Every structure is written in structure tokens, then in C-alpha cells.
């Protein structure tokens, strides 16, 4: 049986993208898989009794070394802010390519804590900063210093000791450009080095809390139990900075989604599902529910989504236990079709993620295809014709070209770059200044405009002639020829309409990162947790690849 790949007009809708969940394809899971055989080491740990100072952690294999340098600083309570406009943080981190010299550590000490206003070099790969969850951190220090383990109930509500507020890579602030490192096999999957940074930061938070507790009460203090450590991740506050990324990297977006879609198609095409595979699917589906019941958020929007997910999942579990026979042919295809018929988007995508769990052989080869050589597809094929362009627009943007952009509600918002922090933001076009400096992120509106303009052009005319007088539409002409080759490269929705929920765009990207427990704090930013339940570095060699469902929290 041949199952078609899902229609981009369904998959690439914002509500669907905003319902994506972590899976075997997620970058933090593929990072652990890639680096499990590397030698992990804590190379330097020079903190004072309050936990301030410098630490270095590394992963090494053969002659390749990646080193995380941590700078932990004293921070007054009134200086602590997760907002991107903050200028000081509890700790700042940089991933260095190789073994840093003393001079490197000193050079970076002057730059890394300054973050966006510091300068890095081509020897540095990723940069980040993080703030303590003061509530969780202080509680753990207090407990450990008295010889007790902390209250698991309290920790499970937070999920981490620190949360990062930005992770930068790929040439930002002088960091190494991707071209310098892209041929390294260990980083073929996207965001590998960002994942490494976050993972090592997590270990630093455990070492720091142990260190502070020990200095507080050297005789009585105990170390944080490994089991508790494992169930803590790293938090992350994420704002709109991430949203334009998925618009600005169309072929990369396509490669992420297409990996997921190929995995789903291949699994649906399995004629006879082995009992061991269906059992594994059922076991981890049930186990995973703990990740939903422990999903805390004050956001009404998310609470509704969680409730509907839980209701749907219970309905689904009842269905597969009472009414479903895995011995029938094409069982996963039947499951998928039933889910589409009976469940909401959030649960459908949850089940799609879970369906990948038994199938390393299907998923693993796809992981290394999730990067993109974006430059290859940048040039516009100007010898193509208007007729061909029209066909692409009608075929690939069929829903978009139906949107009526003469209605205010369909172009209510605009995207801009803020002057004070150079970060992407969204605002109401009719209530805020600056729409004349709009970023080219209103793809649906501009595609519609292109469609209208070419409606009066000759089909046989070539694109080079069209561009002579229409270079204002050049950016969307480029995109149209990209989406022709890469069907999942475009969000099939209006990114400037009145009803847009920008966190849907963030959720898409974060689900591919492998984030859990999305906690929207508004429609424009959210908190997440990464690596919760993940093995500790010293456990990597023999870790359970299903760790994500073994969390106690």
C-alpha cells in the first residue's frame, strides 16, 4: 500500500504546527544518541563558597574536543530578568571549539557575561545565559546543606534549577559561521551544538548547587541525588525571536517537517506490525501521560489544549485497548485514519510522535537529513515562465491566495525589529508606529499580491522580464520557486492576521528541539523545559533511549 505524504495545506497550518510534540526526531534526543560514546569530563571547577566563578566541561572523541566554559556571577534580585532586554544574568556560557587556553578563558570572561554586546571569535560555537529559579535553587541548597534531599513535589512544579533566556549560534556576535564546521559528521543534525551547550549547562547547575550546599555546611551537606538530578531539566524562556527563523529558513523548515512526514508515511505503510513494536507503542503511550498530567501552566489557552489532549488520549487508549486489533494489516495506518476522524490536532500530532518510538530503523536515517544547504536554492530561476510561476502559486498556495487582504483583520499586524535589542517583534499596524519598516515576514500577503500582479502578465513571458519592473516582489518570487521543490517550506497561513497566535510558530520549533511542557506566559512568549528525565553525562554510555517517558515529574 502506498500512503501519500500529508498535504502541506493541512500540516503547515499554524494551528497544526502549534500542536507538534517532541519525538524521536527531536534534536536533544538525537544529540544524546550522537554523543553517547564521547568522553565527558569536568575539566575545571573554580567556584567560591557562594557558587560564583568559572567551570569548564568537555566532550571529547579522538582529536575533537568541545568545551563549555561557565561564568557564574553574583546577581542582585532586582537585576534578575528573563527578558531579552536584561544585561546581567546568574550565569553565562560559551561552547568553545577545542580545549580553551588560560588566555581564552580570560578573554572570554570579559565578553561572555556581556552576551549580545560582547564579541566572540571563530573559536566559539554557541553562546547562552541563564537565570536561577531562585525558589528551586535556594530550596535545594537549604535541603542539601542540612543533609536532606529536596522536596520532589516542589521541584516537579518547577522542573529545573536554571532557565536559559537565549541560546545563540551560527555566526551571531562573532561566533563561528556554520560553514567552518558543517562538514563535521557529529553535527549533521540541526542545532547539535546548541543542544550540547544546554545539556552541559544542566550538569553545571547540579554541580553548583552541590558545591554551595557543601560550603554552607561542610559536615552535614549531601549531594543532590542522581535520580532527582535526572528529573530536572533546563528551563527556557522563549519569545518572538524564534518565530521569524522558520520563515527565514524555508528549506531547513521543509527538511524538518519532511523527515517527520516520511517517518509517518513509512510507518503507516507497514503491513504487519510486530507485536513487540505495538507493545512498545502502547507502553510508552501510557507512560507518556505522566508528562501531560504534570504539565503545569497558568495559561488558559494551554490549559484547554492540555485538557483536550488528555480527553482525546483517554479516548484513544480506550479505542486501542477495546476496539482495535494490531494483528490486522496496516495497523498504524488504521490508527492514523481513526485519529484524524475522531481526535483534535493536538492529540493527532501526539500520536504521530508516539508512532515513531518503536522504529529506530525508520527514524535514524532521517535525522541526518534535517540540515539544509540553503545557499544552493537561493538563486531565482529567471529563465522560467510566468505560466509556470502561476501554476506553482495556484498549486502550492491554494489557500493563501483565497485570503482577502483588503480586509483590515487580515493585515492587522506587522513584524519589525526592535531598535533597543535588535529582536523581532509583532505589533498592531493600526495602533503602533513603524509599519513602514515592516520585515518581509508577511509571506501570505505578498504571495497574494504576486498572484494578482502576474494575473495580467503573459504566460510565456520569462521571470527575468517580470522582475525588470517588479523587484518589490522578488523575495516572494524566490520563495515560490523554493516551495515548488520543498513542499513543506512554507507556513500555509497568514502570519499578520488579527487572529494569529505567534506562540504556534515558537511551539513548532521548540517541539523539534525536543522541549516538553510548553507554558505560554502570553500569546507572545512561553517557558519550556529541556532534557527533563535525560541521563546524566556519566550515564550516557548505556542510557535508556526512552528516557523522555521515564520522568518522575
Amino acid at each position, binding site marked *: 500500500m502506498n500512503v501519500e505524504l500529508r498535504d502541506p495545506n493541512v500540516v503547515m497550518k499554524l494551528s497544526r504546527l502549534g500542536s507538534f510534540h517532541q519525538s524521536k526526531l527531536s534534536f536533544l534526543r538525537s544529540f544524546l544518541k550522537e554523543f553517547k560514546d564521547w568522553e565527558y569530563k569536568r575539566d575545571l571547577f573554580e567556584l567560591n563558597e557562594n557558587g560564583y566563578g568559572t567551570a569548564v566541561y568537555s566532550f571529547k572523541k579522538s582529536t575533537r574536543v568541545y568545551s563549555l566554559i561557565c561564568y557564574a556571577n553574583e546577581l542582585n534580585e532586582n537585576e534578575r530578568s528573563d527578558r531579552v532586554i536584561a544585561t546581567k544574568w546568574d550565569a553565562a556560557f560559551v561552547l568553545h571549539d577545542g580545549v580553551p587556553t588560560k588566555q581564552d578563558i580570560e578573554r572570554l570572561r570579559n565578553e561572555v557575561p556581556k552576551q549580545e554586546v560582547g564579541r566572540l571569535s571563530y573559536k566559539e560555537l554557541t553562546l547562552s545565559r541563564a537565570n536561577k529559579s531562585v525558589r528551586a535553587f535556594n530550596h535545594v541548597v537549604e535541603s542539601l546543606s542540612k543533609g536532606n534531599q529536596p522536596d520532589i513535589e516542589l521541584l516537579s512544579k518547577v522542573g529545573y534549577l536554571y532557565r536559559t533566556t537565549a541560546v545563540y549560534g551560527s555566526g551571531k*556576535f562573532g561566533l563561528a*559561521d556554520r560553514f567552518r564546521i558543517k562538514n563535521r559528521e557529529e553535527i549533521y543534525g540541526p542545532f547539535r551544538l546548541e543542544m550540547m551547550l544546554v545539556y552541559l549547562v544542566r550538569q553545571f547547575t547540579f554541580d553548583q548547587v552541590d558545591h554551595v550546599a557543601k560550603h554552607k555546611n561542610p559536615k552535614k551537606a549531601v549531594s543532590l541525588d542522581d535520580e532527582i538530578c535526572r528529573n530536572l531539566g533546563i528551563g527556557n524562556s522563549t519569545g518572538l525571536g524564534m518565530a521569524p527563523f522558520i520563515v527565514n529558513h524555508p528549506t531547513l523548515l521543509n527538511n524538518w517537517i519532511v523527515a517527520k512526514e516520511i517517518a509517518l508515511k513509512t510507518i503507516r505503510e507497514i503491513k504487519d506490525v510486530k507485536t513487540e513494536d505495538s507493545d512498545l507503542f502502547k507502553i510508552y503511550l501510557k507512560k507518556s501521560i505522566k508528562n501531560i498530567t504534570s504539565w503545569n501552566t497558568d495559561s488558559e489557552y494551554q490549559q484547554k489544549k492540555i485538557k483536550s489532549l488528555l480527553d482525546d488520549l483517554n479516548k484513544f487508549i480506550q479505542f486501542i485497548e477495546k476496539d482495535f486489533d494490531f494483528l490486522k494489516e496496516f495497523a498504524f495506518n488504521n490508527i492514523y485514519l481513526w485519529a484524524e476522524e475522531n481526535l483534535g490536532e493536538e492529540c493527532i500530532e501526539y500520536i504521530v510522535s508516539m508512532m515513531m518510538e518503536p522504529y529506530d530503523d525508520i527514524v535514524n536515517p532521517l535525522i541526518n537529513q534535517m540540515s539544509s544547504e540553503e545557499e544552493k536554492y537561493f538563486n531565482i530561476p529567471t529563465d522560467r515562465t510566468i505560466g509556470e510561476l502561476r501554476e506553482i502559486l495556484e498549486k502550492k498556495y491554494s489557500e493563501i491566495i483565497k485570503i482577502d487582504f483588503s480586509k483590515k483583520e487580515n493585515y492587522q499586524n506587522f513584524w519589525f525589529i526592535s531598535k533597543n535589542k535588535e529582536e523581532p517583534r509583532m505589533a498592531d499596524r493600526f495602533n503602533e508606529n513603524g509599519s513602514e519598516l515592516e520585515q518581509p515576514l508577511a509571506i501570505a500577503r505578498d504571495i497574494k499580491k504576486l498572484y494578482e500582479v502576474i494575473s495580467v502578465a503573459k504566460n510565456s513571458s520569462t521571470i527575468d522580464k517580470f522582475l525588470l519592473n517588479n523587484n518589490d*516582489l522578488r523575495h516572494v518570487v524566490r520563495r515560490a520557486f523554493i516551495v515548488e521543490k520543498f513542499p513543506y517550506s512554507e507556513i500555509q497561513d497568514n502570519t499578520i492576521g488579527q487572529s494569529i497566535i505567534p506562540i504556534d510558530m515558537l511551539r513548532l520549533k521548540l517541539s523539534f528541539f525536543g522541549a516538553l511542557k510548553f507554558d505560554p506566559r502570553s500569546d507572545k512568549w512561553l517557558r519550556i523545559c529541556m532534557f527533563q528525565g535525560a541521563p546524566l553525562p556519566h550515564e550516557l554510555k548505556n542510557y535508556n533511549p526512552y528516557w523522555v517517558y521515564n520522568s518522575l515529574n
Partner: protein
Amino acid sequence: MKSLSEIDTTSKRACKAAGYSWGIAEEVGKNIRLLEMFGLPGIKNLNDYFKKKKQKRFENLNLINKENKAIKLEFCPIIAGTSFLDQAKALENLNEIYFEKIAYPLLFLPFVSRASEIIGKRIFIKLDDKEFLLNFNNNIYSNFLSNNIIENAKTISVKFLNNVDSFEKKEWEELYRLSEDTFVEESDSLKETGAGAGLTDND
């Protein structure tokens, strides 16, 4: 040192701010990144051009012909370059193209370099006395090694080079004969068991 990613982003934004469309700004971002990667002073020239553009007008060259003369002003290198890139496949048939008066011609160069990759031919470009051999957008070979701003070029010639060998037949044969010294003479029995041996090829 600025990363190429920073160079791309800042050039793109500056280009938009200087009045070009986002689509053209995207081209310029990529171009300045290329120039800087090839060791040519892209940022310096772009910055100076945008300053000059505030005080002075430049002519847009949209449709490129065999000979292109700016009437009163100098050609804008960005519009001329975009046109060259877009029309490259048609221009290839002209073999050689001439321009008079292009402002900041180094900014025109990366468009032509990218065209070299698109059409699969080397391009030789002369900006007055400065020569550049554009090798399929993989590198640029030049007698211009300074880090200076070039405010304009009076005469510019662009020549599409045919894909021909750079060596004589005799030189190739000599080298090939030497390479044969790595081969081993096969015995008759080995020949009989090679691929395709023993079968009729008329089946």
C-alpha cells in the same frame, strides 16, 4: 572579527534601509558575504556607496545589451548587477558585454561571479585596468589586491569564457603516459573472468 552571517544580515538590512526592495537586499547580503569571503573589500565599498547615494543619483540599468552606456549619470552597481544575474542565461550568447560608467563596480562583481556558477562558465571581467577571473563562484583570481574603495569604473568588459582546456594536447599526453606507470598488465586468464566475459552480448 565579524562573522559572515553578521555581514550578510547587516548588509541586507542596510540595503533595504537605503531604498532597495527586500528581494534585492537579500541578494546584496549574499553578495557582500561572498566578497568578504573571497578577501575583497565588500563592506567598505557598500558603506561608501550608500553614503554617496544620499547625495547623488545613479542610473538604473534594467535591460542589459551588448553595449551599455550610462547617459548622464553612473550606473547603480546593484540594479545593474541584479539585471545581469537575472538575464545571465540570455547574455551568455553575446560572448562579450561592455559597460561604460558603473559606480562602485566591486559591488557589481559578485552578481557576475554568481552568474558564472549559474551558466557553468568562467567569466573574465575588466574594470578599467583591474582584472578578475571569476571561477564558477568558487573563487576570484585577480590582479587587484588592495583593500581600497573603487568609486567607479569608466570601461567595463565582461567576457564569457568557453569551457576549454588550459593546456596543450601534448602536455596532457605526457602526463597521461606517466600516470600509466601505476597500471598492471592483466594476464589472459584474468581477462577471461572479467565483467561480461564468456557471455554473448547479442542476447
